[in-house]
């Protein structure tokens, strides 16, 4: 009975929900791991906001073309059927509703779907990148996150206290403990770790968890 999923395992779980042929944008960091775990027989097409569709894995060390990078500034390769385009066309894909899925990280997610993931407050240098665009337009906006902060505070909350990235935009949250949909202003629990009671999970969640039918076990492989 594990205590919680690793980031890699959360990414694995998120990958199971991506259909063959889906157009997907993966946020910088943990969400990028999702690309590694596409189920057999499925092949998503990955979009990076700096102007590539259908990029693939990192090249071998030393073989990088540093003009061929993803939004995280990591070197990538191309798959057959790739395309380059400029930034306005790239964000037309985003805001025009052409992406099937965008998966982002989060500082906080509220039960109404509000997301905070770009700023921890007025200290330091603010930076937003493409997150505020990505939360609008993708047909499905999902979040990958630890269920609680390093200090144990809930990341799933009634209302975000950190500066918002977008309003009512998140529809599914993959955490280290559970899979939760956001519907009608509520957190709907779909899956949780088998060894974790509902009450334990609720205690680590900053807003009420709702049930609609049975809750499945959240099962992932060792990774």
């Amino acid at each position: 009975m594990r205590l919680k999923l690793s980031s890699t395992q959360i990414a694995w779980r998120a990958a199971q929900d991506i259909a063959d042929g889906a157009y997907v944008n993966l946020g910088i960091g943990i969400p990028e791991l999702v690309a590694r775990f596409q189920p057999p027989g499925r092949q998503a097409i990955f979009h990076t906001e700096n102007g590539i569709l259908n990029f693939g894995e990192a090249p071998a060390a030393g073989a990088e073309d540093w003009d061929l990078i993803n939004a995280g500034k990591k070197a990538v390769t191309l798959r057959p059927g790739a395309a380059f385009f400029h930034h306005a066309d790239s964000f037309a894909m985003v805001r025009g509703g052409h992406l099937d899925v965008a998966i982002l990280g989060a500082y906080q997610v509220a039960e109404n779907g509000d997301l905070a993931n770009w700023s921890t407050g007025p200290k330091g240098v603010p930076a937003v990148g493409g997150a505020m665009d990505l939360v609008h337009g993708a047909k499905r906006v999902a979040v990958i996150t630890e269920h609680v902060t390093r200090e144990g505070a809930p990341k799933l909350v009634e209302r975000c206290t950190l500066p918002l990235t977008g309003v009512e935009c998140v529809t599914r949250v993959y955490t280290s403990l559970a899979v939760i949909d956001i519907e009608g202003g509520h957190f709907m629990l779909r899956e949780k770790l088998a060894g974790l009671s509902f009450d334990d999970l609720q205690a680590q969640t900053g807003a009420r968890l709702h049930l609609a039918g049975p809750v499945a076990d959240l099962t992932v492989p060792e990774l």
Partner: protein
Amino acid sequence: MDKTIGSPARAVAGIGDGASVMIGGFGGAGSPIELIHALIDRYLATGHPTGLTVINNNAGNGHVGLAALIEAGMVRKLICSFPRSADPVVFTELYLAGKIELELVAQGTLAERIRAGGAGIPAFYTPTAYGTELAKGKQIAEFDGRPYVQERWLKADFALVKAHRGDTLGNLTYHAAARNFGPLMCMAAATTIVQVSELVAPGAIDPEAVITPGIFVQGVVEVPEPAQEEVLNRSQARYPEMTSCA
């Protein structure tokens, strides 16, 4: 994932009564004749689809393609910038008889409205048409001391587009000035169906040369050696004789 569709007939099978349909082309350049004729074939066989709203720069020419679609009585409303041509008799007669509705839009505004529809921009401001009949009823706003007209995005249920090469993922290139509205309409329709002269495997089109990335395309049908509207009209072709490749 393979977006290939086997025939123009199958490609247009999902277009229902009352649908809005963007049709690529500027005059005859880029007009997807085979897709349009497949749609008329279906209407003549089944009585559907009818009551269409068509978005195109023009209103057809002669008795093929868009003109034949209008002539068949399938089009309720046309949104276009220039409903004149060398042989505009089909649209002209229906329009003057009050049997087809016309929304006239300045050409650049038409292009930008379609792009806005594809790019998630619900409205924008343009200097075009300020102070003219075409700005009537539209919101006016001043920026930096100059007046502008607010225009809304334009989307459609379907786009029928003619491209040159396409791969099975929907990546497209165009030929010369047949490009015109094609890349914009691909962006702005819920379902974009493209006829290509040559269908190739992913990887056969240089990623630098892709004009329409496949994300904007839902279906690709190969039509080798497609008809060209201007050439058809110069040979005085008419739709029923000029059969589609369905």
